[in-house]
């Protein structure tokens, strides 16, 4: 995260005087739940990429096809929309959530990662 500046070192009036400055804003610090990618269950449907409000889904092109690679935790606010829209997280017959180990995206409390 960009180091926070004192009041003498910032433009007056809350003005933003450079373009694209939102990129430097580490909204990842707001996260309460962390999305965890389980690649073995992913079908690369790109729903998560399409729905993510913060462009935090990391995607690579492999042989011209998009592959889900994980999350950009610098910007991800942990809203959980990706896990919510992931078709692998729901059993198509019962319409109920599947067991965690079968999901492609699971949400875990940030407190589980304080050691890192």
């Amino acid at each position, binding site marked *: 995260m960009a180091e926070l500046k004192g*009041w003498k070192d910032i433009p007056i009036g809350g*003005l933003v005087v450079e373009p694209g400055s939102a990129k430097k804003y580490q909204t990842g610090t707001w996260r309460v739940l962390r999305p965890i990618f389980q690649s073995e269950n992913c079908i690369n449907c790109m729903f998560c990429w399409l729905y993510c409000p913060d462009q935090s889904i990391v995607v690579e092109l492999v042989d011209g096809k998009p592959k889900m690679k994980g999350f950009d935790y610098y910007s991800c606010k942990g809203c959980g929309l990706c896990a919510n829209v992931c078709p692998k997280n729901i059993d198509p017959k019962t319409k109920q959530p599947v067991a965690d180990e079968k999901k492609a995206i699971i949400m875990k409390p940030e407190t589980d990662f304080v050691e890192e």
Partner: protein
Amino acid sequence: MPLKQAITGAEAVAYAMKQINPDVVAAYPITPQTPVVEYFAKYVADGVVDTEMIPVESEHSAMSAVVGAAASGARAFTATASVGLALMHEVVFIAASLRLPIVMAVANRALSGPINIHCDHSDAMAERDSGWIQLWAENAQEAYDFTVMAYRIAEHKDVRLPVMVNFDGFIISHGVEVVETLDDELIKNFVGKQEKIYPLLDTSNPVTYGSIDMYDYYFEHKRQQVEAMKHVPRVFKEIAEEFAKISGRKYDLVDEYMLDDAEYVMIALGSTAGTIKHTINELRKEGKKVGLLKPWMFRPFSKAEYQRLLTGRKAVVVLDRSASFGAEAPLYQSVKSTIYEVASKPQMGSYVYGLGGRDIAPHHIRQAFEDAFSGNLIVDEERYLGLRE
């Protein structure tokens, strides 16, 4: 050559704005501000100014329009009063926080309810913590002079804050007085060209105004506003000095009338200061050592000035034309807390007067002074002049 004109305060303000020739004026009519904008609209219609005039649908829109104009780099002006100012309230804070050098004339009028169109100061006092510089005129001449000086203060690089020029509704706005106006060319040169800071229309240096400011930076931006206010007294004095050179009229943070040897000092804002001066003249003939301290600038409130001028006096009587329900009246509150630290504290008394345009006469002022002469002041008691019990 200076020109002596018999005009109202409203016309004096409009005349100053004609000479300043602002880029944008947006306003919504409200008594007793209306003639300011009427006179100005005539200048626009007659083509004597280049101003883009925006007749808006409310005061909230008027202030929003001048905020947009000022952010784009335009010199912008509006005028209002009373509930019109209250309707602007949200955007009044935004103008100050975005550090926009807007000038607004306020023809001070009571706030509703019950609805009342006459003079008191409750409208401006409701905005005293909004971050605007507040200048207070005693008469039409001062309203003209402050309007001329306002942009220089607002646009100063150490300040960059909006300025509110307060002049009492009807008493000043509609009363005809002789006002000495200066030549157009002199005013044009005095006001000069605005040094633009981050104008939105400079597309080669794009900036964002009004983005969200969270707990990580909002506090720092408020601290900057606090700092800007600290520069205002110095900047005001410099510009007043310059204005004195072209007008012969010398302004300061406060107006001192018979103050040097005064043992009993009255403090009041606006047109009532004239009545107080008259009463002081009479009391002086009777050998009473009385004087007046009239704040020309109420925000920022220049503590050092009051401490210097009030220490050692026998008594200080503060007259407020607005109440703060459940607390002390605004001017009294400011003065009282300011002299907490002075070496020799005077006795103090608080008098509220003139709400909703109630007349204030010399005998009311004399009554407050008499209380001071007889030592009959109670620091924590609020009294009322001209009120029926």
